[in-house]
Structure formats: C-alpha cells, structure tokens
C-alpha cells in the first residue's frame, strides 16, 4: 500500500553524538534519498565541532570575524541548502535533524516550522524556562534573547536540516557573527538556569514532545 493517506510512517530516533558537520550532512542526504521509499521518518540528534553555516539567504557581511580569527578558533564555514542566514554550531548545542516524509495533509512549510517551535517551547517549559515564538521571526525566544534557531530544507517533500537549541554551549562564539542576520543576543538553557543541563535529558524530553506534536505514537 503506497497511498499517503493510509500508509503510516515508521519512526526512528538516532543520536549521532559529536559529529563533523560534513559527515552529518552526507548522512542526512543519504537518508533523504531513501525516505520516500522506506516510509521511515527520523529524528536525529547530534552536536557539531564549531562551524558556521550559511543558509541560502546568508550575507557574507553577517560573519563579523575576519578569516584569521575563525582559523585561530578553528571555526569552519559552510554554505548549505537550508533557509535562513548565518548561524553557529558548537559542542554543547543540541542540533536536531528531523527527516520526515511529509504526507499530503502535512505539506505546509509554515505549519511545519511552527510545529518545530512548539516542540522546543514545550521542552523548555519542562525545565521551567518560559519561551515564545515571535511572528515573522522564526525561532524560539526567551524574552528578547534567542535560544533556538531554525532552518530547513525540503526535497520531494522530505524535510532535512532542522533546529539548534543552545543547551550548555559557549555563547561567546556567537560574537563571531550576526546570528540569522540580525542584531540579536543569543542565550542558552545553562545561562537561563544558571547551571549546566544534562544533554541526555534534553534529548529524551525533546523526543517525547516531538512525537506528541507530530502525532507519532501508539495506534
């Protein structure tokens, strides 16, 4: 049975640990290629060594640091096929790549982005952090500070890329860029709570909220 309205997708959660950005990208693309045929959706967690990624609308001027400084700090730069401007990944930040085969009733990019925001907001509330989405500024915010950045790609209605949640990461690295092309201040769960957070607990709760918001589960 291949009818989108009938066939329910399988759902797998994977933790790729700390992984080089390029390797993670190759793995993502390999899964995207098979997703339509496999009827399997993936929720992938990982962390990356420091890397700047520039989405399709990124402006070079939003990388503030000169190349020599980036080299010194061992921060690589990658141009990638997601929406949005420049962002930064580094250890201690939870990167989430949902690779979902959106079926006929789910093919709304705005709704998909809003669901990702909701998952993050629900997760943060479990840690007693009040956060919000802001109309016209995709992402999740704690007051005026941004805690989650979102940028996705879609190919044959299979999603890739995703979101980055600042958990315990070094926020000073964001001074290298204008995150998302805006003059904004980033924050993290550690900064808000005043203590480091166990990454495994964040992954576990993220997965639970994700399955609830996206309708995976028994039956």
């Amino acid at each position, binding site marked *: 049975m291949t009818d989108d309205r009938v066939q329910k997708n399988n759902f797998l959660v994977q933790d790729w640990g700390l992984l080089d950005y390029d390797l993670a990208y190759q793995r993502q693309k390999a899964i995207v290629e098979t997703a339509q045929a496999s009827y399997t959706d993936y929720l992938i967690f990982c962390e990356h060594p420091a890397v700047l990624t520039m*989405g*399709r*609308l990124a402006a070079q001027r939003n990388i503030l640091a000169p190349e020599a400084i980036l080299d010194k700090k061992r921060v690589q730069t990658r141009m990638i*096929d*997601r*929406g*949005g401007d420049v962002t930064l990944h580094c250890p201690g930040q939870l990167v989430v790549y949902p690779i979902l085969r959106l079926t006929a009733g789910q*093919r*709304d*990019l*705005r*709704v*998909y*982005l809003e669901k990702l925001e909701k998952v993050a907001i629900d997760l943060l509330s479990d840690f007693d952090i009040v956060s919000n989405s802001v109309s016209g500024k*995709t992402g999740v915010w704690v007051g005026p500070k941004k805690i989650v950045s*979102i*940028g*996705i*790609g*879609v*190919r*044959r209605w299979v999603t890739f890329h995703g979101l980055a949640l600042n958990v315990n990461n070094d926020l000073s690295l964001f001074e290298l860029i204008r995150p998302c092309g805006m003059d904004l201040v980033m924050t993290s769960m550690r900064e808000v709570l005043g203590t480091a957070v166990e990454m495994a607990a964040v992954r576990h709760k993220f997965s639970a909220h994700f399955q609830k918001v996206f309708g995976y589960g028994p039956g």
Partner: protein
Amino acid sequence: MVQVRIPELGESIDKALVAGWHHGLGDAVRQDEDLLEVVTDKAVFNVPSPVSGRLKAIQAPKGQEVLIGEVVALMEEDG
C-alpha cells in the same frame, strides 16, 4: 511545452524567492529531478521537474520573487 509552476507550499505562503537553478537552458532533466530551489521564510524547497525532457526557458532567474502557481520555466517533454 510543459509549464513548470511554483507548487503550493502552505496555506499562508503566497510567494517565494528563487534561490537558484540546478540546471541551465538546454539541459536534459529527468522527471522529479530537482530543477530549482525556492526560499520562503526559513525553508528551502526544491521544485522538481514535472516531466523528463529539456529545459527550454527560464522565466524567473535567481533572486526573483515568484508567486505560488507562477510559471517559472518551460520544459520540452521527451518523445
């Protein structure tokens, strides 16, 4: 000629920006192969070719804003 249109991307989305073309004029393209990328908000969407054939006309170059449903290219279908 077969028209290539920007597909529906969601109820509240009425336009997108052409981020680039995967193929140039005269290229042979297979059905469902990525033809161009459009960007809307924080999403990049790959628009597939509706048929197998040759790309004969590009009506929305990189950087141009396009409406949902707008014709952005013409394909000459094989056979």
